[in-house]
């Protein structure tokens, strides 16, 4: 099977508050930085995938004439699904060079559509009437069940945010860099019990993009600024548009399918993973992710984090950019998680993990609705 490589990866020039750019321009800014990273122009791209904006808009705006398009939009992990689909398309010869773009005016809302929910949709009929009011009061709903079933404490949930802030402290592009304590987290504003402000993600503007091609072609990308990073494995799934209808309130079915599939695809065991990214819109996500990926047994992830295994100096460095809790979160964070995996394998991350050769990147989307997982390697897939 043909191997697939990432030959371009970059974020928008700025992250955070970008009131001077529309959402479509954030896609373009990220795409232009990524084309420059790969030493390419729009004329080199014949495949396009995006979410948040229509592929039509992004292709037209950038001057791309695609012969392969993917507009899969399942929330913040859409870009992981795009990578998985692009791998298949490239291996099948449907196109030669795929650009995947993300841009989101999550904070400034410039040229961004409003949020609305149809009262006749499933969630509109069976969740919204009870006051679910955006992700902070919905994505968080299963956690008390987890806490009772497994004895996780409020302090342990808070520790997720503390550890990620340690990573963010090493990253000049992170939105929040000042060290925090468990008490700081528990004393921050109550958003939706049991969640405090510092256990909830940021809301920022930004974007990112990737360029994928076959590894055969990757060796001929002459003007790229970095060596290729290789796709070793991929997985995806969806579960339910309603948190109340998750099969199990203490585990994500989509995680449990996408994650193990990607690792099996890659042919790796847990001990071979040098670096891990788990999309952390809220503090419980790394806990669910560590268990659903199989790095921890059921009910063990909070202790694993408390004992600093995922922290700087720990044996499984996780969310090393500071994550959605401290680095940035535009709304669809999955692209930034993959950017950090790629920086780590390129050896250019601000908080660089020594000798990082294999990175697992787990995304979530539409709250617990969907998941995509990518295993990246610094060398061609063995």
């Amino acid at each position: 099977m043909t191997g697939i490589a990432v030959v371009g990866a970059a974020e928008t020039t700025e992250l955070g508050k970008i009131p001077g750019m529309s959402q479509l321009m954030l896609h373009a800014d990220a795409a232009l930085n990524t084309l420059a990273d790969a030493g390419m122009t729009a004329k080199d791209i014949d495949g396009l995938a995006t979410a948040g904006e229509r592929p039509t808009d992004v292709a037209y705006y950038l001057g791309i004439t695609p012969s392969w398009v993917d507009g899969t939009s399942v929330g913040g992990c859409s870009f992981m699904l795009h990578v998985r689909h692009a791998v298949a398309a490239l291996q099948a010869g449907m196109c030669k060079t795929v650009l995947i773009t993300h841009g989101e005016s999550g904070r400034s809302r410039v040229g961004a559509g409003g949020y609305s929910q149809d009262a006749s949709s499933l969630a509109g009929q069976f969740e919204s009437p009870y006051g679910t009011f955006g992700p902070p009061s919905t994505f968080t709903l299963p956690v008390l069940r987890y806490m009772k079933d497994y004895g996780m404490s409020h302090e342990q949930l808070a520790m997720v945010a503390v550890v990620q802030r340690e990573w963010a402290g090493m990253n000049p592009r992170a939105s929040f860099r000042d060290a925090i304590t468990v008490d700081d987290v528990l004393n921050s504003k109550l958003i939706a019990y049991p969640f405090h402000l510092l256990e909830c993600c940021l809301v920022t503007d930004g974007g990112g993009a990737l360029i994928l091609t076959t590894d055969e072609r990757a060796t001929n990308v002459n003007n790229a600024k970095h060596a290729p990073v290789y796709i070793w494995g991929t997985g995806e799934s969806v579960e339910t548009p309603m948190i109340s209808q998750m099969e199990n309130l203490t585990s994500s079915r989509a995680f449990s399918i996408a994650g193990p599939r990607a690792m099996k695809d890659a042919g790796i065991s847990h001990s071979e993973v040098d670096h891990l990214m788990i999309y952390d819109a809220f503090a419980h996500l790394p806990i669910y992710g560590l268990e659903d990926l199989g790095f921890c047994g059921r009910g063990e992830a909070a202790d694993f984090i408390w004992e600093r295994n995922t922290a700087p100096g720990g044996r499984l460095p996780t969310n090393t950019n500071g994550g959605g809790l401290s680095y940035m979160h535009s709304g669809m964070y999955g692209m930034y998680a993959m950017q950090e995996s790629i920086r780590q394998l390129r050896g250019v991350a601000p908080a660089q993990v020594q000798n990082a050769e294999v990175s697992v990147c787990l995304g979530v989307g539409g709250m617990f609705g969907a998941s995509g997982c990518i295993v990246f390697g610094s060398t061609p897939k063995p």
Partner: protein
Amino acid sequence: MGKPARPLPKPTPETQHFWDGCKQDELRLQRCDDCEHVYFPPRPFCPSCSSRAVSIFIASGEATLASYVINNRPHPAWDEPYAIAIVELAEGPRMASNIVGCEQTPECLVLDMPLVVQFEVMSDDISLPLFRPAGDQT
């Protein structure tokens, strides 16, 4: 009229029987005639075995508190922090709801506490199934 009403559901042909039931103080669930799977939310086929042979029945209205959050962010339809709950019905399915007749505090909202349905009229067309602690007649 004071504060705006909470967002109300707009029934579809597949869910109309459920909302009609709520207006008559009946919590209607569906059971597959072929595999006996009981499910929610409503749809005219079994999500477990794909059979279209399904029947509507009236549930007991008994449930337990599976999980919740207490939302502290301002919602146009609520004046005070309020709990959004996931309840587990005695018949098996879970559903989102609110807990009434009970202080909206972690001390009063204890996981696995027994609950019973209580329908509240929200409009001419919609009554919502809410839940109160079992044994509380208020």
